[in-house]
Every structure is written in C-alpha cells, then in structure tokens.
C-alpha cells in the first residue's frame, strides 16, 4: 500500500496513542418499538488490543450486531437508543463526540464489514465508485486518483482483473468476491479496528475459509484489532484470540479461545459447544439447547438463560442477574454455578 494511506486527517482531540484501540464499557442499548422497549444490549464490556482478534459469539438476536452498530454509531435511531456506557477509542469516548467528529472516526479508525455483501453494497453504483468515494470524501482525492486506489485495493483483496472489475456493479460479482470488495472497502483508509459482522455467513464453506484467511492475513500485516461477530463456533476456533459469549444482550462469558473450548464456564457456552455436530459422534443426536432465546422486550428476571438451563436453581430466577464471576485471572463467567459447569465435564 502507498504510504499516504496512513496520513490521518487531523488528530482527534484527547487521543492517547498508548490507550487501547477499543474499549467498550457497560454499554446499554434499547429499542423503543410499538410492542414495548426491547433491551437489546444490557451492559456489554470488552477490550480490544492492537492486532488482537476478539470474537463475539451468540445466537441471532442476542445483541451482538447491535453492539457493533453502536460502536460504529450507525444504530437506527429511532428506534435504537444508547442509554448508557462508554465506547472508548484510544481513550476518547466516542459517544461524547459531536456527529461531525464521530463521522471521521468511521472508516478512518474503526471500519466495519457486513454480513451480506450483496445488500450491503449499493446496487446502483459500481464497486469502483463505492471504493473511490472513500478516498474522495475522506482524503479529498480526485476521481481519477481515487479510482487508481480503488483498483489497488481490489488487487489487495486478490480480486482477479481488478482494473476491469472496478467498473462492475455488485450484482456482477460472486458472493466471495463481493465479500472481498467489502473487505477492501473496510480497509481502504487503514483503520486500527475492524469490526466484521458475520463476514462469512452467507458464503460457501470453502469460500468462508478463503475469506477468513484473507482477513487474518490483512490483520496481521496491519496489526489491526479485529472484532469478529459470529454465531459460528468453527470460525471462532480458528482465528479468535479471545471470545465474548453473548446471550440476551449480556456478555455471559469472556475468555481466551482455548479456555472456552476446553472448559466452558457457562451452561450456555457449554450448550453451544455440544450442539456442534462432530464426525466422531456421528449417529448421536445433537444435544441442542432446548427452547428459544427470550424476547428482548420481556427478558426473564434473574439469569436470562434460566428457563433453558439445566443447572438453574431458584437463585437464578431472581434478580439481580448473576454478576461476572472471575473464573480465572483472565476469564469471567456470569453464572452462579460456574464451578459446577466448568467441573462438570
């Protein structure tokens, strides 16, 4: 990449280069809908170091995407409102920045990749236009120069014949290629943090692997922090350093990847791991978690997971929800019975 990509527009007031690229502290988001208030995110916290990959794992509707959107500042508001917490970029609370400043953080410092590249790319503009737009609007480049950069980016993400394809429309690309375009777009301005929201869900397994490999490679090259949002434990195992497991808007377990896979400390995490079909267990019924996640407008008191939990006791059904217990120096779990869960195996 050419050098001037690293030229940031202007310094953000209060940036501490030594602080972590991203810290989320006790984030609360709610959606005010006709059917009542949905508590989508209820006190999520996590840190991200440079070069680190943090996976946020959870089922649909657990609040992981909302968390990502809140970090990016692209929540649909209304109905979504951030009701509490901090999102710190190198020590600066993004939630306190005026919109004009906040905007400059996006794509420049924190960028995002979306799940479905087909719908996430504007169907009526060429990918070249959509890539070049970044350089034109953030770097003030001419159309021509920006186009050159767009081609470079497509090259970077290994799209063949980039100089021709730059004039194609999103629907003319295959799924995997589209996702590469998405990645190129996210990396264009050389951000320090990349949030990838289910980047491979819509893709074939083989393509999934290629994309993940590409992401990993680019991350390594640039020493980027990566927040990987996914429901796919297989993906997580390969690339993540640390994992936050979310359920009903809360982080219910946070640990290094190996710890989680080896000894889950929360019944939900455990259930997830058990629901992975394994060749060596062929013929056995998958022990999926019984029941459905709660409606976010009506989260049960106490531990949100209690109706589905085989460990649940009376204490779990009463407020307050279980705190994050320190399971080991580097991991936490929000279960009163984490010891039993962990030692159960």
């Amino acid at each position, binding site marked *: 990449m050419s050098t001037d990509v690293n030229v940031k527009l202007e310094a953000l007031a209060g940036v501490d280069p030594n602080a972590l690229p991203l810290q989320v502290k006790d984030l609360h988001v709610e959606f005010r809908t006709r059917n009542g208030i949905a508590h989508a995110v209820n006190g999520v916290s996590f840190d991200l170091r440079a070069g680190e990959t943090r996976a946020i794992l959870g089922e649909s509707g657990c609040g992981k995407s909302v968390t990502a959107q809140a970090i990016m500042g692209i929540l*649909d508001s209304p109905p979504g409102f951030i009701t509490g917490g901090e999102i710190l970029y190198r020590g600066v609370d993004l939630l306190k920045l005026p*919109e004009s400043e906040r905007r400059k953080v996006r*794509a420049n410092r924190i960028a995002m990749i*979306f799940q479905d590249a087909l719908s*996430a*790319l504007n*169907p009526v503009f060429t990918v070249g236009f959509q890539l070049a737009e970044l350089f034109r*609007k953030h770097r003030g480049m001419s159309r021509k120069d920006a186009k050159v950069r767009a081609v470079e980016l497509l090259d970077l993400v290994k799209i063949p014949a980039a100089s021709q394809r730059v004039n194609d429309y999103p629907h003319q690309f295959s799924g995997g290629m589209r996702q590469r375009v998405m990645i190129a*777009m996210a990396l264009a301005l050389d951000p320090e943090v990349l949030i990838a929201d289910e980047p491979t869900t819509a893709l074939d397994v083989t393509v999934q692997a290629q994309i993940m490999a590409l992401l990993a490679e680019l991350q390594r090259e640039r020493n980027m922090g990566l927040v990987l949002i996914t429901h796919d434990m297989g993906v997580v195992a390969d690339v993540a350093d640390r994992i936050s497991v979310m359920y009903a808007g809360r982080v219910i377990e946070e640990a290094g990847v190996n710890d989680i896979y080896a000894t889950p400390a929360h019944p939900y995490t455990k259930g997830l791991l058990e629901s992975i079909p394994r060749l060596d267990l062929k013929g056995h019924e998958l022990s999926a978690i019984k029941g459905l996640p709660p409606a976010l407008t009506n989260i049960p008191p106490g531990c949100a997971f209690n109706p589905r939990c085989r460990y649940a006791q009376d204490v779990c059904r009463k407020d307050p929800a279980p705190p994050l217990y320190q399971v080991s120096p580097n991991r936490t779990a929000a279960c009163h019975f984490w010891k039993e869960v962990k030692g159960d195996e």
Partner: protein
Amino acid sequence: MGRYVIRRLLQFIPTVLGTMFLLHYMTALAIQFSGNPVRALFGDRTPPPALLQAITERLGYGDPCLDQRGNPCFGLFADRLQNIFFHFDFGINLRQREVTDLVADAIPFTLKLLVIAILFEAVVGIAAGVLAGLRGGSFADYLVKISTVFVISVPIFVLGVVVREFVGVKFGNVLRGQDWIPDVISSGMFSPVFKPDYPMASLIIPGMVLGATSLAVTARLTRTSIMENIRADYVRTARAKGLTNKRVIGVHTLRNSLIPVITFLGVDIGAAMAGAVVTETIFNVPGIGRLVTMSARTGESSVVVGVVTMLVLVVLVANLLVDLLYAVLDPRIRYE
C-alpha cells in the same frame, strides 16, 4: 443493455398493434350497435339521405362490415394501420378536419400543461415525500400522509371547479383590484381559465390542479421508498464509511429510492394526459383533453378513437423510454 433494448422493442410491436386493434374494434362495434354517428350532426332536422350518404362516405363509415354486428372488420383495420403508418392519417372528425390537425393544434397546450404538472408533482411531491420519509412518525410525516390521502380522495373535478371559482374568480378579482400587482400575476396566473394572452402563466394553476393527485401519489411513493431504503444495508454501509449525512441521504438513499418514483412519473405521463381531460375542460385549456371531452360529449367516436390511438402511441413510447431509463438507473435490470 443492447439485448435488453432489442427485447423491449420487440415486445413493443405486439402491444402497439394489440392496443390499436382494441380501439378499432371498439369503434366498429359502436357503429354496428348504435348507428351512424353522422346522423347526430343534423340534430332534430332529418337530413336528406343523399347528404347523409355523402358525409358518411367521406368519413369512412360506409364499409358494409359496419352493418354486421360483431364483425371485427379486419379489412378496415388493415386500411387503418396502413393509413396510420404510411400516411400518418388518424381519420377525420365529423366536421371533416384531420384528427392529426386537431391534435397538432391541441398538443402544445397539453404539453405545457403536462410539463407544469409533472414539474410540480416531481419537485413538491419528492420534497414532501423525502421530508416525511426521513422523519417517519413525525408531525411532518403525519401531515404529508393525511394531506396526500385527502387530495387523492377528492375527485379532481370538484377540486378543479372549486379552485377555478375561489382562486381564479374570487381571489383573482381581489388581486386584479390591486394596481401594484403585475398583470402577469393578477390576470395571467390567476385567470380563472386559460388565457391566450398569457399562454404560460394562465396554465400554472391548471397544471397544479392536474398534478395534485399525482403529487400525492409521488409523495407517498417517495415516502415509502425512502423509509424502505433508509433501513437498507447499503445505507448503513454508507454511514459506516463515515460519509456525511447529506451524502448518505442525497446519494446513497435517494438514488435508489427515486427509481420507483421516476418510473412512476414516467408512467404518470399517460395518466396525466388522461387527467387533462378533466382539467382542461374545467379551465378551458384548448388541449387534447378538452378535445376528447368535447368529442365524447357529441359522440364523435371517430375523433375519440383517433386521438386516443395517438395518445396511446405516445404513452407506449413513454413507457418504453421509462423502461429504458429504468435500466439505466438500475444496473440490476440491464444484465438480466
């Protein structure tokens, strides 16, 4: 793109022929079932048969197939097609004027009226729709929603007559009483009816009345479209790209949202021409619409069918252009 255009053109031909046959058959049936329209020319006086005969022949109502009820008169249809495509002859009216002449006289007025109407509905309609769509649930949204529904439900002729009497006559007379108001406003724009002295100014209000219903539809369509698109993933992407709100809305949302609106506006040219039937009659605009009304009221089906055939050709061409425009606006269509 090329293949798309060719395919679309190929589809165009049967549509044109089909539509024209439909109109032709309607006229034939009309004459077969309700008699020679020439008779009405003479009113209460019974014309000498020779005279009736002569005029009938001249108007081309003499073909024997017109005496057989239900006969589709393919021969006449072939003649008619020949006349239209080789001689550009759409027939004559009962006063023996060429329909093409009638239309040529009338079309400039209708075109001006249409331009005003479409401009009005596009500008105001899209603006109102965007305003309402961006602030769904707000007061502005509510206002746009209610007022558009109201405009749609009031019959256009009631609206037209009320506007003519209250804005053109009552309010206009007040303005005309004020010396400081320039004539172009007081007796041009606020003339209750079309005025040859102010051919443009006196069409503004009729044009607005004509555009009113479609304006409401445009606003509603824009509103819905914006509301749909504003939640689209690619708009979220655009935001995530750190673009200004202006650009997110103005470029990424609007471009997509306006595709159905522009399509509607294109198709609406036809509807507006039809609407001109009412508006032009009320405001005495000597355009196509008034021509159709007058001919319909006198039962001159020859003119009605001739003019409508011509209009339908215009509409079909407009639809074709809209489809092609649609393909330009939305690349997904082009490559299907």
